[in-house]
């Protein structure tokens, strides 16, 4: 009879350990998403300056400007670590790429120091977003693996820990297609 109590005690201790591990993984994932949002906000802040400096030289390229501005508003509107938000951000990346491709055709613009500095900063911000994304995905992977694995999934089911989505480049043809450069 005493052994039953000991076994029960071990099981309870294990369940507590697993529960705390889930909490820790989930909070790290949330924090990783918050870090991505910090980098995304940096990008939102840089874009208006970029659009204005390109407008100064390439006044006729209204299509490119509109795309970027619309994509930016859409991305700022979406919130939370969802697939829809990831898609909106990827569309914004695509629109920015098109804008830079358009800017290639204007040599005076390319020589402008302000534009070059903004281009560097944006390119660095894109790298930071990639880095934060990779960190977020690594945490999501760990969380999902822990939730799916047996016997942890029992505890996860009882306390309703849910899996999270990866911040992925989903099946989105517009963002995945190659950027056309027309001269």
């Amino acid at each position: 009879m005493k052994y039953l109590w000991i076994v029960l005690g071990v099981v309870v201790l294990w369940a507590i350990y697993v529960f705390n591990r889930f909490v820790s993984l989930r909070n790290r994932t949330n924090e990783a998403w918050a870090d991505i949002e910090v980098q995304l906000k940096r990008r939102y802040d840089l874009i208006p300056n970029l659009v204005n400096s390109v407008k100064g030289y390439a006044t006729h390229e209204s299509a490119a400007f509109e795309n970027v501005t619309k994509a930016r508003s859409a991305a700022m509107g979406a919130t939370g670590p969802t697939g829809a938000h990831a898609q909106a951000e990827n569309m914004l990346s695509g629109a920015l790429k098109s804008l830079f491709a358009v800017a290639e055709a204007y040599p005076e613009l390319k020589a402008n120091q302000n534009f070059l500095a903004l281009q560097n900063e944006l390119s660095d911000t894109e790298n930071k977003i990639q880095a934060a994304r990779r960190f977020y995905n690594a945490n999501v992977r760990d969380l999902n693996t822990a939730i799916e694995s047996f016997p942890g999934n029992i505890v996860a089911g009882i306390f309703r820990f849910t899996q999270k989505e990866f911040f992925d480049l989903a099946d989105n043809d517009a963002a995945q297609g190659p950027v056309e450069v027309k001269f």
Partner: protein
Amino acid sequence: MSVFLAVVIGIGWYFSYYYGDPNILYFFVIFSVLMNVFSYWFSDKIVLKLAGAKEAKREEYFDLYTSVENLSITAGLPMPKVYVINDPAPNAFATGRDKKHAVVVVTSGLLSILEKNELEGVIAHELSHIGNRDMLLSTIVVVLVGFVTIIADVFRRNLFFGNLGRSRDSDNKAGNLLMIVGIVLSILAPIFAILIQLAISRKREFLADASGALLTRYPDGLANALKKISQHSQPMTRQSSAIAHLYIADPKGLGKKFSGLFATHPPVEERVQALIGR
């Protein structure tokens, strides 16, 4: 660090033998262990003064600074301080007692020969050393080597003096054989401990390569960097044996000659093979 420790212990053993006082050996071992712990604790400050490093500002070293910044975001580590040493020999190292006091240093020679992908591979390797807490591990290993040495010596002395007192009581062969085995082992034990320490160091280098490749998702970067570094291998103008094991490549530029059991780093061919499989 290990050569330093071995030399100090060797000196201590010699003096202890010469003066017939075991305490001298113990003093030397404890002293060297304490020095290692001290240098671990203040490793970020000590190393910078030793190597003559200057802080790398974002405006001056944009690529280097942003590479470190972005890779530490990927690794989930706080960004370490970044320093540059003015030396044509290409090399890099990371140090610091924990991730909050970490420092990454590269030489100007490294910056001049590597492309951005390759530099990122090297930085990822160094950040992995920080993330895997290799400084703490190697300090613990050094302390253990010190303990093994002390215990082996205590054992040998007790065996010797103990048996001498009892030799009149029993003259059994098994006892004498055990004594001989004990003496041999107690001499070999510290040597084995140091060999194990070097083996651990090599394994951790492989682990840092692997963790770095996981960070960048581009093992070719580090592989190409290692190849380039080994081609340009030359001794650094300012070196210190105490921190030799922290560098990505042997700072004395010995390359192939110093490989095998006594090397702190695995040979470059093996590292490239592990990274990209050819």
